């Protein structure tokens, strides 16, 4: 495991997929992102953790510009994030996003949810899109639910459909914004398993989560944020066994001891 992650970090140095440079963002008087520098390599799985209000969700959302930034630059695969319009839409298609509240299109069936982007954005042939969608739904284990509406599915199933919907676009990188926070405990694992499989297959992933087990087992790197800053980043083993900063020690002591 360690060897694998070391190998991946070697790749990292030569192939940077997502690069954030001195990114700042304010919500009114609140400075939610303060001079964020973060580089994510192709194939790397980065887990972002930290207390609520530390800016980790906002960070995740700036990467496909669901949130704009006040200053700094974000580049994806060498291209700076476009401001608006067609270019931005094209870039977003390359960046998969999975939300805390699933956000499946409520008036469309599961199958239509997964087909929509392929047909309308990628201009794929309908038949091809449907085949692809069914294969993806099978892959995340909800193939039998294809013709149901999102409201008829459990939270875990909905989130897996949401992952399939993002994967259908053939993204370069996947963003997960607290994907299991809205789930009942017994449904968390089915979603994490899908994510773990994705990580094994070499998908570049940025995961904001409170699931420390997932961070330990699937991440190449843990980024710890507090008060809008990246306080510490390290390999998971190192971070969980010997955190360097007091802020991280404090955070871990609060979540790991019960």
């Amino acid at each position: 495991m360690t060897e694998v992650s070391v190998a991946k970090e070697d790749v990292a140095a030569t192939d940077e997929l997502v690069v954030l440079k001195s990114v700042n963002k304010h919500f009114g008087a609140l400075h939610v992102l303060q001079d964020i520098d973060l580089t994510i390599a192709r194939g790397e799985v980065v887990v972002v953790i930290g207390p609520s209000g530390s800016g980790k969700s906002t960070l995740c959302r700036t990467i496909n510009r669901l949130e704009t930034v006040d200053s700094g630059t974000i580049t994806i695969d060498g291209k700076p994030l476009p401001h608006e319009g067609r270019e931005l839409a094209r870039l977003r298609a390359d960046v998969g996003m999975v939300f805390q509240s699933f956000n499946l299109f409520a008036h469309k069936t599961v199958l239509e949810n997964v087909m929509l982007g392929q047909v309308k954005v990628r201009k794929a042939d309908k038949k091809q899109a449907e085949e692809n969608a069914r294969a993806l739904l099978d892959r995340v284990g909800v193939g039998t639910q294809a013709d149901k509406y999102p409201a008829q599915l459990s939270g875990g199933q909905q989130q897996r459909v949401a992952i399939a919907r993002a994967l259908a676009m053939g993204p370069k990188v996947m963003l997960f914004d607290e994907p299991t926070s809205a789930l009942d405990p017994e449904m968390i694992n089915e979603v994490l398993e899908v994510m773990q499989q994705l990580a094994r297959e070499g998908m570049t992933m940025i995961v904001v989560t409170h699931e420390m087990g997932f961070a330990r087992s699937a991440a190449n790197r843990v980024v710890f944020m507090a008060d809008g800053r990246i306080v510490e980043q390290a390999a998971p083993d190192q971070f969980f066994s010997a955190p360097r900063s007091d802020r991280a020690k404090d955070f871990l002591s609060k979540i790991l001891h019960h």
Partner: protein
Amino acid sequence: MARRRFERWRAPPSTYATHPEAREIVFDFLQGYDVLGAFWTTVQLTLLSAVGSLVWGTLLAAMRVSPVPLMRGFGTAYVNIVRNIPLTIIILFASLGLADIFGATMGASDFKVQGFRLAVLGLVGYTAAFVCEAIRSGINTVPLGQAEAARAIGLNFTQTLRLIVLPQAFRAVIGPLANVLIALTKNTTVAAAIGVAEAATLMKTMIENEAQTLAIGAVFALGFVVLTLPMGLLLGWVGKRLAVKR
């Protein structure tokens, strides 16, 4: 005259059966008038204006939620100006202003056709403001996450609105839109102000010529209820069936 009136109100129902001419006497004030034809014009006014205002109202709603400030400004100004002007004035403006001063004939050579088209134009312009606000309130019922998810898979603003937000917004406001449609049906009577031969115009003529004003009023009132009541019931049922489950 007095004798006829007496017969009409006092004759027991059985007399109608034994004396078929009784019915003729009761409804003789309808003779010589094309009531159905007038209501058909009302229906035509309603349907054309409904389609037009639905399209224009949806476009206005799209403008009001668009990221372009100029479009938002136009949408807001339009709604706030138009919905606060009495419909009579708008219809009269269409006729006296557009047609007489600016010479807008609406592609009609016939004066009657021109009046009808101007009335539709006025009704569309007016009703669209209400349609816009109904749809906009529907847009507000669609959770923000729906639009975010749509943008996240690379749909642009128009696609997001057309494929994700508006279909859900429409389903949420079928009830309010039914209200607008019912109001529109009744508002078509304002077209009488510019002489369109719809139901209210005929009613006015009949009241001037006949004695049975109450009965005439009742017939036309009933006619409108017959048009609007099923509308409300049907759309209420459709709205329930199409409601988006979350």
